[in-house]
């Protein structure tokens, strides 16, 4: 029996106190004191005790906001002097896309490797922007896979990054006549991308490369950022090259299993030259996700590219557009265009930009992607606060430049383990046991726009 894919999780404590969400305010003076029922002593998470320990050791005045929000102290105080509050720093964490909840949950996953649980049910809005206007079908959750609770171990999350033949040809003696292209598989539908911003010190890149290597996935990286320290992980790195510079990096190409070329006109002519250098090389083409992306996808698929890697902006929006569409619409457009041309099976589609949570990975695949890449979550796993101070040249509040690569790689591994577990949970609940079958399976999802159109358009007309 083949060895099961397993991601080793290890609790990895943060180096700095994470910015917590909740704290309690004691807003009146009339604490009974002698009631002997003090809720501070009863806190099941020992938050009050931790706070006092923190106070006795801190260098500068700051507060801990580590309350889990269970309300026990608020409800049980005999004088009712407690109220729960939200940390003001928490409110300003991140930006409108990489919001405080996403950052906080990513920290939790990188710390524990576990799936975050809100504990009090979902209290957010019914529908939102982007991926929040799409729901996945969980109808099979009442009837799990045939193997019951053990079935999740048999859910396959492998994807291929190599091109496929549309059909096989056989000789008269029934041996295969077709030239079989090389096959490249990764065990999770997720790769790493060098983030666009952030303190990308050698240690940060080394941590990500080490994690990619252990997870048996890839990391897309610029050739100028290759260092000696990354050499042992060259097998897991994908150099992002251009038509005009790939000849300067022939050594790098020979060491790599996959390379990426930036899209430009006539790039398909370079495929033959690259394959002559290394016959089993997998070629990806990096394409900006704009209005021409779907047409370029068709041309490059016909020219035998292995993987098409589309780049949206950091918020998952279409590039070069005054009214940018979101990633999920763009994925559907490209996927359906290839389906319409009857060539979808030939090529693999990977998308970068705006993948912030595990559910975004599953939803992208439902929309038609084969896999996704993550960039900013790698930094958040390393405690980045998405404060963009580094962009302004200010020092990093969590000293990303000084991290230990071993520690960083374990934090990233924990995060990806939690994401994979969530993907498996979603697929188990859908009754799908193979992530390649989830691709483009929009029957397993509902889109708010479609439902609104179907139910309300006949009464109120279509949304303008």
């Amino acid at each position: 029996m083949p060895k099961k894919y397993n991601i080793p999780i290890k609790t990895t404590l943060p180096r700095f106190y994470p910015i917590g969400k909740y704290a309690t305010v004691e807003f009146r003076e009339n604490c009974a004191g002698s009631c002997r029922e003090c809720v501070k002593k009863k806190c099941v998470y020992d938050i009050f005790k931790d706070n006092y320990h923190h106070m006795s050791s801190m260098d500068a005045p700051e507060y801990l906001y580590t309350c889990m929000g269970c309300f026990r102290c608020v409800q049980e105080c005999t004088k009712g002097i407690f109220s729960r509050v939200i940390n003001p720093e928490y409110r300003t964490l991140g930006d409108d896309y990489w919001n405080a909840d996403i950052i906080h949950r990513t920290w939790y996953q990188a710390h524990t490797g576990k799936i975050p649980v809100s504990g009090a049910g979902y209290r957010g809005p019914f529908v939102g922007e982007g991926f929040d206007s799409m729901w996945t079908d969980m109808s099979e959750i009442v009837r799990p896979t045939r193997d019951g609770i053990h079935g999740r171990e048999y859910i396959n999350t492998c994807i291929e990054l190599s091109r496929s033949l549309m059909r096989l040809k056989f000789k008269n003696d029934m041996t295969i006549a077709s030239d079989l292209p090389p096959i490249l598989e990764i065990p999770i539908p997720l790769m790493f991308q060098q983030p666009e911003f952030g303190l990308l010190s050698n240690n940060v890149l080394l941590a990500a490369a080490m994690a990619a290597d252990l997870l048996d996935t890839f990391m897309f990286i610029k050739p100028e950022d290759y260092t000696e320290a990354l050499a042992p992980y060259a097998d897991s790195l994908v150099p992002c090259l251009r038509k005009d510079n790939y000849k300067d990096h022939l050594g790098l190409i020979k060491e790599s299993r996959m390379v990426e070329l930036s899209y430009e006109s006539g790039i398909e002519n370079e495929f033959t030259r690259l394959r002559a250098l290394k016959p089993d090389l997998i070629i990806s083409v990096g394409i900006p996700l704009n209005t021409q992306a779907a047409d370029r996808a068709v041309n490059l698929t016909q020219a035998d590219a292995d993987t098409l890697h589309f780049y949206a902006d950091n918020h998952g929006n279409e590039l070069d557009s005054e009214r940018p569409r979101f990633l999920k619409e763009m994925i559907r457009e490209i996927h359906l265009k290839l389906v319409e041309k009857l060539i979808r099976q030939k090529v693999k589609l990977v998308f970068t930009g705006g993948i912030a949570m595990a559910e975004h990975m599953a939803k992208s695949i439902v929309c038609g992607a084969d896999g996704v890449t993550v960039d900013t979550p790698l930094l958040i796993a390393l405690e980045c606060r998405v404060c963009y101070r580094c962009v302004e040249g200010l020092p990093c509040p969590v000293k990303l430049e000084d991290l230990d690569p071993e520690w960083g790689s374990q934090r990233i591994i924990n995060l990806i383990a939690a994401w994979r577990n969530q993907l498996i949970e979603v697929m188990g609940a859908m009754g799908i046991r193979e992530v390649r079958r989830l691709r483009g399976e929009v029957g397993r999802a509902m889109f708010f726009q479609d439902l609104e159109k179907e139910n309300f358009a006949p009464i109120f007309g279509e949304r303008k």
Partner: protein
Amino acid sequence: MNKNFKPKITLFHCINTFSDGASLPIAAEVDCELQSVKLPCSSMVKDVFLLRSFESGSDATVVFICPEGECRYVEGNIRAKKRVKRVKDLLDEIGLDGRRLSIFNISSGDEAAAVQNIQKAISDLADLGPNPAV
């Protein structure tokens, strides 16, 4: 007073007065190092935090609270006031001078008053000098 003295001020403020103390429009000619601690309610100011601010090198500590009767948590500002008074007495007792710690009522969004009060705390430091505990 030493002309090279750059006062270090710690500001505790309730977010219902203004959202971020660090972005207060303090005039460029006022040379001070301001550390702002945002609080959901001024009642979260504890004696130990106020004392700790002096221990970590603050020359003066300023607390901004909501006007009386306007606290979102009913009595939070009154509670903060009592604590500040107690810490002021403690500072006098240990020879640090209670004038280093001041508390002001600030109406919601009144940044002009906030800046004026910080400048007052800085000008008071001209007599008091740097924090002797550092």
